[in-house]
């Protein structure tokens, strides 16, 4: 047993260092996670060779529908881009963003709900503010704690829920 372990240990550890399997696996993991959610997204670009692949990654600040999230991504906290982590409660009130989906060329109205009742998730902190407005326009403001009206008003993380296509101006 011991010698077998030693052999395996040595070979797999040195292999890992040569081929950087860790980063490969991390990348695959991210892609797979993205893929699981993909049927919702009619993207027209290939995976490989994309200059901005992370606009399709729900765990990245660059995901297209996160264009006005200033907070922690629930998808990095046990939730998804549209679901709160277990044990938290969604905020019934929200701020609204308008984000451009490069996959279909449309602008979408999204609702940025906060998930509430646990302390700061602390993971995947994003600060995007496209079309975000100051506090005097609260429906477009992401500086407010939108858990404010929840019975447990502590802010944990934020999601992005598609409400519909934005009307052309």
């Amino acid at each position, binding site marked *: 047993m011991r010698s077998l372990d030693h052999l395996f240990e040595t070979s797999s550890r040195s292999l890992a260092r040569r081929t950087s399997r860790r980063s490969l696996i991390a990348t695959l993991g991210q892609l797979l996670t993205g893929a699981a959610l993909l049927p919702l997204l009619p993207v027209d670009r290939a995976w490989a060779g994309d200059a901005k692949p992370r606009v399709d990654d729900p765990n990245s600040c660059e995901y297209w529908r996160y264009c006005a999230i200033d907070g922690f991504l629930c998808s990095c906290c046990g939730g998804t881009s549209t679901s709160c982590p277990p044990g938290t409660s969604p905020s019934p009130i929200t701020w609204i963003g308008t984000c451009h989906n490069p996959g279909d060329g449309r602008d979408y109205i999204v609702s940025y709900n906060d998930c509430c009742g646990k302390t700061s998730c602390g993971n995947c902190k994003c600060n995007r503010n496209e*079309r975000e407005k100051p*506090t005097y326009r609260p429906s477009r403001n992401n500086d407010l704690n939108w858990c404010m009206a929840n019975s447990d008003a502590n*802010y944990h993380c934020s999601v992005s829920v598609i409400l519909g296509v934005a009307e052309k101006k």
Partner: protein
Amino acid sequence: MRSAPLLCVAMLGVALSVRALAASVASPLPAEHLSVERLPAKTPHWIYVFDNAFSNEIDSRVHLFDGDTYRRLGQIDAGFNGSVTESPDGATTVIATTYFSRGSRGARTDVVEFTDNATLATTHEIVLPPKRAMTVPNIFNVAYSADGHFVYVAYITPAASFGVLDPAHGTVLGEIDTAGCALVIPSGPNRVSSLCESGRLLTVTLDAAGHEASRALSEPFFDADADPVFVQGIPTAAGFAFLSFLGEVHEVDFTGAQPAFAPAWSLVAPAEKGKWRPGAMQVGAIHRGLKRLYVPMHVGGEGTHKDGGTEIWVFDLVTHRRLARWPMHIDGASPVLAVQVSQDAAPLLFAATDSSDVAVLDALTGHVKHIEKHLGQTPWLMLNP
């Protein structure tokens, strides 16, 4: 560089006397007494740095930091998503915050807490209705009247209103609705203005009991669609200056019964417009004696108004001319998210960065004297009463 030789001489003297002492003392060190430190005499270079502690947001706090010695002097705790202000006489720090009976859950208590700046002990509190504006720090979330008789607290539920408190008697005097307008911009002994979505200021005048006596709406002075102003106003000699996302400067005189607007001017030359722009959590500071404005500026497009400044630009408030551009990265600083300046004749500029550091600069020259690493997690507002 002038002072360095003097410091060296002083140190040499201390070191020599210590060595002499060491040679003569054979007895062991005496037993010591534990004590509580008293603050030294206040200087204009003390600064109250609000740390939102965003990754542990129930534990926000204020660090009192000395810009001369680069030492922390003490701490005032600030609860969940707290806001901070200083009394007009500089004697009291006020924290408006929220607690939950089980940390992040349970019964909610909104409260305004008063801390004696001489001892950093919290002396009393006023419990609020559970309506406090839970938002990023801003000098208009909680504010004193000029005479210190009232404290105003912004409420957002998300309906906007504000509370009027009597700090001397520890009571809530009432609540005043400000529909369509938000936050508490104090002026004089009894006026509160709020920023409106319509680009106007709503100004409510209070009676002696803290109730509404009258209200008035100004003409619009900005366009919330085309070019909104930051809510982070900057105190001027006669009121506050508001910067717009694109870099317009709106100076508002609050000394009269109603606010008066000076003609707007721009931080950016026509060729820079839409490229260089202000951006931060505390987006400007003004030395009122020197009439200088300090703004964190960066290159970016729409939606970058909370990106930090890669440079600090210095303006003369009289001539509206840019006096200097101070790139921060060459001194190892990350983009600047908050600025404050001391009001003395040898002013220090404080610049908090998005990597949680606070740089201390000579506000006359831009010389970076010190970078204090990790002054909390997310230092987003600095006050210097």
